[in-house]
C-alpha cells in the first residue's frame, strides 16, 4: 500500500477465534467463533482509517485485538516496526501507552464511583511517574482540550450528559499522549446534534495532536465523513478497502454496494432517485460461515465458483483492495 504517509500499524493475516465448548463433564472444544478471520491492512501515520460493517462482522474484535486486549489466534500486528506478539506482557503494557481506546458506551465505560479527575488520571498512574500536582495540571489541561470546564474534576460521571461523558472518555484516552487511538463506535449512542460535536472534536484533536485514528462504526455516512480511507468488513473478513471517495463512488464489492445504498439519504430528491439494493436474508453465524465466499448467501451476483472458492483479497485498482471473484475495476 503505497502512500506518502508512513505506516504506523501493519495488520497481517490477523485471526481471532473464540472457542466454543460443549459437554457438561468433559468440556470439549467443539468449534470456534471466527470473529476475525484472516484480515490484513495498514494504518498510516496521521490518517483516519474507517472500519465499517454490521453487527457481528468482527470490527470491534479487530480493534481490540490490535490493542492486544485480546490475544490474536494467529497473525501479526506490527506497531511502528515492533511485532506486538513477540513482546512480553509488561512490554505490551508499555506499548499501550502509545495506543489508546475510546469506547462505545459512555455510561458503561466510566466507573460511576470515580471522580472525573481520577478517571482521567488513571492512565497517568499506570504509565507515568507524575506527582499529584503534575497529574492535576494535566487533567485540567485535558478537560480544557476536550471542551469541558476544568473545575469539573471532582464531579462524578452521572452528573454529565452522554456527549460530555464521551468527552471524558476522550480525555482519558489522550492522557498519555498516544499515537494511535482506536475509536470503537464513539458516537453511536449519542443524539444527532451531539454526534456532530464529538466528531468535530475528534477532528480538531487529530489536527492539533497529530493523532492516528482507527474509527470503528456502523454509520457509513459518518465514517465516510471522518475517514481518509475505509475498510469494509463482513463476517470476519475484509471485503473491500479504498480511499473514502473511491469506495463511495466506485464500490467494487457487491456487499459494499448494498451497504452504501442501504444508508437513508436525508434529502427527498436524492432519495427518490437512489436505486436501493435490498439484500435478502440475515448475516450467517460466524460459527458456521458459509463455504467459499462469506457473502455468498446474500450476494445478488454469486455464481457456483463463489460457493466453492474463497475469493482472494487483491489490489484490483491502485490502493483499492477487494475480495470478490466478480469484482471488475474497468
Amino acid at each position, binding site marked *: 500500500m503505497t502512500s506518502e504517509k508512513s505506516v504506523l500499524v501493519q495488520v497481517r493475516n490477523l485471526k481471532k477465534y473464540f472457542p466454543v465448548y460443549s459437554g457438561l463433564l468433559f468440556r470439549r472444544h467443539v468449534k470456534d467463533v471466527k470473529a476475525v478471520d484472516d484480515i490484513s491492512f495498514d494504518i498510516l501515520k496521521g490518517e483516519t482509517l474507517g472500519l465499517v460493517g454490521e453487527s457481528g462482522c468482527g470490527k470491534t474484535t479487530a480493534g481490540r485485538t490490535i490493542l492486544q486486549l485480546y490475544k490474536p489466534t494467529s497473525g501479526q500486528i506490527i506497531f511502528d516496526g515492533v511485532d506486538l506478539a513477540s513482546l512480553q506482557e509488561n512490554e505490551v503494557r508499555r506499548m499501550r501507552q502509545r495506543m489508546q481506546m475510546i469506547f462505545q458506551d459512555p455510561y458503561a465505560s466510566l466507573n460511576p464511583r470515580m471522580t472525573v479527575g481520577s478517571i482521567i488520571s488513571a492512565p497517568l498512574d499506570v504509565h507515568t511517574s507524575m506527582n499529584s500536582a503534575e497529574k492535576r495540571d494535566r487533567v485540567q489541561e485535558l478537560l480544557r482540550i476536550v471542551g469541558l470546564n476544568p473545575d469539573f474534576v471532582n464531579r462524578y460521571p452521572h452528573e454529565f450528559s452522554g456527549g460530555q461523558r464521551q468527552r471524558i472518555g476522550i480525555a482519558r484516552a489522550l492522557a498519555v499522549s498516544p499515537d494511535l487511538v482506536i475509536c470503537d463506535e464513539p458516537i453511536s449512542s449519542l443524539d444527532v446534534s451531539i454526534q456532530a460535536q464529538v466528531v468535530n472534536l475528534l477532528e480538531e484533536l487529530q489536527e492539533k495532536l497529530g493523532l492516528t485514528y482507527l474509527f470503528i462504526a456502523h454509520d457509513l455516512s459518518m465514517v465516510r465523513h471522518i475517514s*481518509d480511507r475505509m475498510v469494509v468488513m463482513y463476517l470476519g473478513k475484509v471485503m473491500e478497502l479504498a480511499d473514502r471517495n473511491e469506495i463511495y463512488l466506485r464500490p467494487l464489492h457487491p456487499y459494499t454496494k448494498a451497504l452504501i445504498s442501504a444508508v437513508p439519504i436525508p434529502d427527498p430528491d436524492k432519495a427518490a432517485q437512489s436505486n436501493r439494493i435490498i439484500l435478502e436474508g440475515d448475516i450467517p453465524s460466524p460459527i458456521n460461515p458459509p463455504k467459499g465466499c462469506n457473502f455468498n448467501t446474500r450476494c445478488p451476483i454469486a455464481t457456483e465458483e463463489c460457493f466453492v472458492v474463497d475469493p482472494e483479497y487483491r489490489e484490483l485498482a491502485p490502493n483499492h483492495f477487494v475480495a470478490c471473484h466478480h469484482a471488475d475495476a474497468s
Partner: protein
Amino acid sequence: MDGLIKLENLRTRFHTEDGIVNAVNGVSYEMAQGEVLGVVGESGCGKSVHALSIMRLIQIPPGEIYDGEIWFDGRDLLTLDEKEIRQVRGRDIAMVFQDPMSSLNPVYTIGFQIVEALTLHTDLNKKAAKERAAELLSLVGIPEPEKRLDNYPHQFSGGMRQRAMIAMALSCEPKLLIADEPTTALDVTIQAQIVDLVIRLKEELGMAVMWITHDLGIVAEMAHKINVMYAGYIIERGSAQDIFKRTKHPYTMGLLGSLPKIDDAPGTKLFSIPGLPPDLVKLPKGCPFFARCAYRKEQCKTEMPPLEEAENESHIVACWRWREIQAGEIQ
C-alpha cells in the same frame, strides 16, 4: 384524503422525585387515512411519549395526560374507559416498538403470540387464527411460515423478530400503525428490508403509518408529512420537501447541518448545535431552543412562538424570526 386521527393540544407529564417532567407540551396535528407521518427529534423530545399517549399506554401514575383531545373514529380516545381503549389498541391502532426482543414474550412461541392477538380482536377460531398467523408471517417475508410459528423468539434473528412484531401488529388490519424507532436496533441492510416491507404493506393494506425516528434519512424517503419535535413541542411541520428543502426552524436547520453529506470535501467541518436540550423539569418560559439558538433575541426568551403558516399551508413553524432568517437579514 379523509381525516383519520386528530390531536388537539395534547399534554403529558410525569411526576418524579426530581419534579414534574413536561414530556409533551401541547401537540396538535391531524393525520389523513393512508398517510405516512414521520416524527423526528432527539431523545427526550417527546416523540415516543406522545405516541404512547395516543395508545393510552402511559403508566398513570407517575404519568398523566393532563390536557388535550385525541379524536379517532368520532371518539376522543382520552375519554374512553379501559375496556373500550383495549379494543382500539391492537385492532384500530397497532404499535411496533424499538426493541423486538423485549416486546416479545420469550416463553411463548411466535405462533402463540400472534394467535393470541387474533383471537382477542377477531372472531376467528383457533384453527383459522393459526392459518391466518402463518399467512401473516409469509406476508412479512418470513420463509417457511408454518414451521416458524412453533419457534420461540430467541430462535429468530433481530430482523426476523421485528418482522414478527410487524406481523402481529398487522394481524387485525389496523387503520394506523405506529412504529416507534422500529429499526434503530437493526443493521442498515436489515433496516432497508424493514422500511421496504412497511412501505409495501402500507400500499397493500391501505393503512396509515406513523414512523417515529431520530434518523432524518428514513423519513426523507417515505414520509408524506414530517413533525419535528423538540422538548415536547412540534417546532416545525410540513412535507418532506418543506422540511428538507425549505427548512425554516433554526433547530431543524441545525439537525440537517449536523449530518455528513455525501459530497463533503475532506476536512469539512460538521455544523454542530452547541449545548444540550433543556431540562424538561425546568422548561424555559419562552422558546425551548432559546439557549442553543444562533438567532435568538429578547422576545424568544420570554414568549413561546406559536406555530404559524410559512409560505404554504402545509408548512408550519414555531419561530419568531423565521422570516428574518429566511430573508437573510440576520446571520
